């Protein structure tokens, strides 16, 4: 009975007057239009993944150029300015355009399936998040094709270097507007995920039965919603300084550069956990599946995730130990940072506890997940070293920091995301990557990663500052830099193998039956790839590791499902949201407006207001039009009636009430 909750909610829609006569209802299932108008969380997740991987490769090329420049002392591969652009764009790209959207791809694709929902709470808002993310990514990268060049203020964009006095060209404006749009996209998506997880859980899916990945999605979404406003404020202030001559950061007028750092890191530190918590969630799914045991200490893993989220807001100034905060503040942030090591350590203990006594099958996803635990542990330890403020005074802004955060971001986040791709690939596409190629790519990536970043600890302790385009041969940095570059090339080869194999598998890989890993969570009860409507019958959850329980109680579950199917059919079938172009239109408007603000020349002649304001206004009108049409077209949706084999009728309109 509870299973029909969702249909009940929407039942009234079927009696509402049809608005389709006025508004275009795209129904294309294939082709460009279908992708631009899709509201299916799986398609949106797929697109997030594709864009993220594209930018991941772009960021990777930037990284390789950086390493080539530093391979030998006094390198000449890049000029100073090109190098500064590379590391700025590498950081910005990897964080905002690769790791975050790749996490978002999993949030979108997997989370609704894990909680037994048919889509996210606001499908069109989801599409809007995707396209706004794409708009932001375009603007951040626009500089590559322009005279002013791409941004070169560092990914932290410290004022006053980014103010008009020291970077007069448009590169920083593009960075500012790009990040603003990415923030809009992230906040919109996160609100969507929060509402989805709280409201659309299948009957019986209590909070303490949520799969850990979904829990981490929820915590990450809260972190995004609470932390992005800070960078939004900082970026607005910077934009006001740059466009209208306000005085937030302009030193010559009494501005306070340190204000930027506080605002940036109040966002920036939770951001670190935004990057790592989804990864922890993925690993907390993979380890139990391949150990064939439930997660050890589920409640503690969940609570430690939440406490990492809370504490993550109280440690931002450990990025600023060298800014002269005084003894008391330094001590407080030092201790708070150490405290965060406790819940983090707890997670590692519990992952080991999960392995203990299990039947571990060393499949590719498991290899990446175990690689994650090892590498994240090393990154965590160097993190503890940073928390000791006196030691950090030597490590801050040196290659030691570079080593640390690449261990948590590549060895941590990225390994887990690569594990997740391998793990859920059979579910997403019905094909499985060959074990040989998967493991080969793992070992090459693992070796390349460590050869690149382990020597950087020594480089940092030996006094090499980060963000430097050249160094002299007499400082003792030659060998470590050379080895790091060789490692980076190996890492590049590993990543290439990984993706080449992934593309091959997508097209021609071995087809597999459902639930190929004998997994534990609900998404694996679906056929692969999952149908548009996900669940033919909304499942009822009886235990944590719901699908594992279902597999142990096949008969009762089958009976229960048959009853629920009947009840749902009586309520009008499977209710589905309509496709819509308007979220895309709204994002397009944002793109145009942001281009107007960021790129159109700041020309003091009267023409300037005409041009700059003009393009921004056009963008604003397009965006408002998109939003209004989106609101007015309504969310009536349609119903699917499946035949006995589970096939939906070919013509959607015929199915409409």
């Amino acid at each position, binding site marked *: 009975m509870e299973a029909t909750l969702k249909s009940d909610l929407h039942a009234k829609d079927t009696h509402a007057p049809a608005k389709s006569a006025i508004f275009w209802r795209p129904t294309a299932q294939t082709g460009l239009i279908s992708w631009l108008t899709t509201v299916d969380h799986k398609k949106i997740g797929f697109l997030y993944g594709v864009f993220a991987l594209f930018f991941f490769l772009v960021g990777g090329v930037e990284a390789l150029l950086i390493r080539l420049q530093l391979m030998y002392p006094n390198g000449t591969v890049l000029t*100073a*300015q090109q*190098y500064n652009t590379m590391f700025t764009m590498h950081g910005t790209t990897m964080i905002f355009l690769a790791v975050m959207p790749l996490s978002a791809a999993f949030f979108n694709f997997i989370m609704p399936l894990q909680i037994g929902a048919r889509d996210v709470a606001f499908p069109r808002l989801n599409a809007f998040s995707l396209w706004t993310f794409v708009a932001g990514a375009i603007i951040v990268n626009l500089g590559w094709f322009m005279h002013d060049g791409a941004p070169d203020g*560092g990914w932290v964009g410290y004022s*006053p*270097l980014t103010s008009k006095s020291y970077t007069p060209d448009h590169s920083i404006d593009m960075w500012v507007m790009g990040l603003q749009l990415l923030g809009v996209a992230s906040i919109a998506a996160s609100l969507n995920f929060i509402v989805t997880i709280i409201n659309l859980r299948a009957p019986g899916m209590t909070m303490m039965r949520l799969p850990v990945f979904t829990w981490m999605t929820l915590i990450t979404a809260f972190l995004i919603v609470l932390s992005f406003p800070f960078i939004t404020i900082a970026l607005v202030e910077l934009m006001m300084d740059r466009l209208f001559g306000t005085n937030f950061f302009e*030193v010559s007028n009494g501005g306070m*550069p340190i204000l930027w750092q506080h605002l940036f890191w109040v966002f920036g530190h939770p951001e670190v956990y935004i990057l790592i918590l989804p990864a922890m969630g993925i690993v907390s799914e993979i380890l139990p599946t391949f150990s*064939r045991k*439930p997660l*050890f*200490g589920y409640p*503690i893993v969940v609570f430690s995730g939440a406490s990492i989220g809370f504490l993550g807001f109280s440690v931002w100034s450990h990025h600023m130990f*060298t800014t*002269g905060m005084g*003894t008391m503040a*330094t*001590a407080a942030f*030092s201790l708070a940072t*150490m405290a965060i*090591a*406790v819940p983090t350590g*707890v997670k590692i*203990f*519990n992952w*080991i*506890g999960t*392995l*203990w*006594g299990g*039947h*571990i099958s*060393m499949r590719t996803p498991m290899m990446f997940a175990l690689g994650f635990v*090892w590498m994240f542990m*090393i990154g965590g*330890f160097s993190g*503890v070293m940073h*928390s*000791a*403020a*006196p030691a950090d*005074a*030597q*490590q*801050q*802004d040196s290659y030691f920091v570079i080593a640390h955060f690449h261990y948590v971001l590549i060895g941590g986040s990225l390994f887990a995301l690569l594990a997740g791709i391998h793990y859920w690939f059979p579910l997403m596409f019905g094909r499985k990557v060959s074990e040989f190629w998967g493991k*080969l790519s793992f070992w090459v990536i693992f070796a390349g990663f460590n050869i690149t970043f382990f*020597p950087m600890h020594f480089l940092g302790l*030996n*006094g090499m*500052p980060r963000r430097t*385009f*050249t*160094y*002299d041969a*007499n*400082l*003792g940095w030659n*060998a470590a830099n050379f*080895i790091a570059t060789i490692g980076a090339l190996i890492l590049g080869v590993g990543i290439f193998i990984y993706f080449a194999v992934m593309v091959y598998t997508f097209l021609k890989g071995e087809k597999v039956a459902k639930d190929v890993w004998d997994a534990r969570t609900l998404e694996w009860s679906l056929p692969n790839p999952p149908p548009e409507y996900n669940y033919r019958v909304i499942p009822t959850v009886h235990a944590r590791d719901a699908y594992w329980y279902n597999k142990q109680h096949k008969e009762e579950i089958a009976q229960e499902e048959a009853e629920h199917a009947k009840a749902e059919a009586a309520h009008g079938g499977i209710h589905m949201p309509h496709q819509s172009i308007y979220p895309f239109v709204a994002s397009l408007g944002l793109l145009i407006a942001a281009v107007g603000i960021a790129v159109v020349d700041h020309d003091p002649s009267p023409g300037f207001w005409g041009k700059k304001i003009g393009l921004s206004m056009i963008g604003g009108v397009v965006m408002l039009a998109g939003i209004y049409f989106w609101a007015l077209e309504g969310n009536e949706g349609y119903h699917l009636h499946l035949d006995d084999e589970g096939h939906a009728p070919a013509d959607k309109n015929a199915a409409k009430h």
Partner: protein
Amino acid sequence: MRLSSLLTSTARWGRAGFALGALALLSGCDYNFWRMDGHQSTITVAGPVARSQLEVFYVTCWVTLVIFILVGGVLAYASLKFRAKTEAEEKAVPPEQGHGNPLIELGLIGASVLALVIIAIPTLKGIWYTYDVPEERKADTYEITATGYQWWFKFEYPSEQIAGTGALTTGNELVIPAGRPVRVNVRAIDVIHSFWVPKLAGKVDMIPNRGNFLWLQADEPGYFWGQCAEYCGDSHAVMRFRVIALSPKDFADWVAQQTSPARNVTPKPGESPKAQFASLRTFKQNETGITDKYDIAPLEAWKAKQFPEKGENTALVAQGKALFAAKTCVSCHEIRGHGAAGISGPNLTHIGARSTLAAGLIENNTEQLQRWIHDPGAVKPGNKMAKGYLDNNIKLTPEDEVALVAYLQSLK
């Protein structure tokens, strides 16, 4: 079959790589980067502040190493011991579906907290110790103001006042008395920089509109490498400096020399201006400007720079002095006593007595000095002097350059 042939070829390539690596090691390449004893090492320290920071670092190292061995050991053991070796084992009846053990969890949480306390105590001590000069040594403290510019450092000595001009001012080479605490007040004029001399003390940021400071002490006389540690624009990587610690007597001599006006070279009658060195060669982008001779004994090299060079061409120096005014160098640089009073560039009153140029980037010799004034933008991308050449249409002939070099080198 394809698979196995690939495996063999992988193995072959692996062997080839291994052989190449071994060859590289044997051929005498210096691969022992773990020694960490470079000029900017934070491990081979030379003063109490850096030592205190290093001690805290070692505590964190040992504690985390022990935890790593314990936790890593258990992780490795569990991964190997409970691994399903065959497909049959994988498909066997699943193990007991246990959900965890609260007692183990609590115990481990307690142990983690304990380990952090071990780190926290020296951390707190270190924070207070490294923050400011200890009370009992305050009276003995020497005070200096360091100001960051894009991309060089200005050093002012408030206790060495010069009548009519104010505090003694130098650039890019900070000379301090050894064995005494030195309190460095750090300031910035344009963007954020960071003052870092790894062997003496951890960094403190130089932030505009903010009065930061740090303290450091060199135990013995010595020559130390420093570098800006906060990204500050195009030439951040080449914004370096030196700290030279001298014995009390040497320091007093140095102060006496520095507080006197610029050295005057009287032209010898009948001497004609003639360059005494080869014409400028072309330099590669980012080419190093440091010789081994200097690098092996930098303090001696610095000391040698304190005395006038033998056989200066006095006529050339006089010509250079005139050019320094004629080419408007004076509007940015100060040469006390020679009528040059610009303040936006480094003070050059005793430039000839410095061991490095262009913010610690290149050695101070005739060749490198000419390289610098010939095309400052090529040495240090985006710097003000290059822009100044363009804005003021300053063009130097090779003869001009040679004369200017001779003049600047004479300023001991």
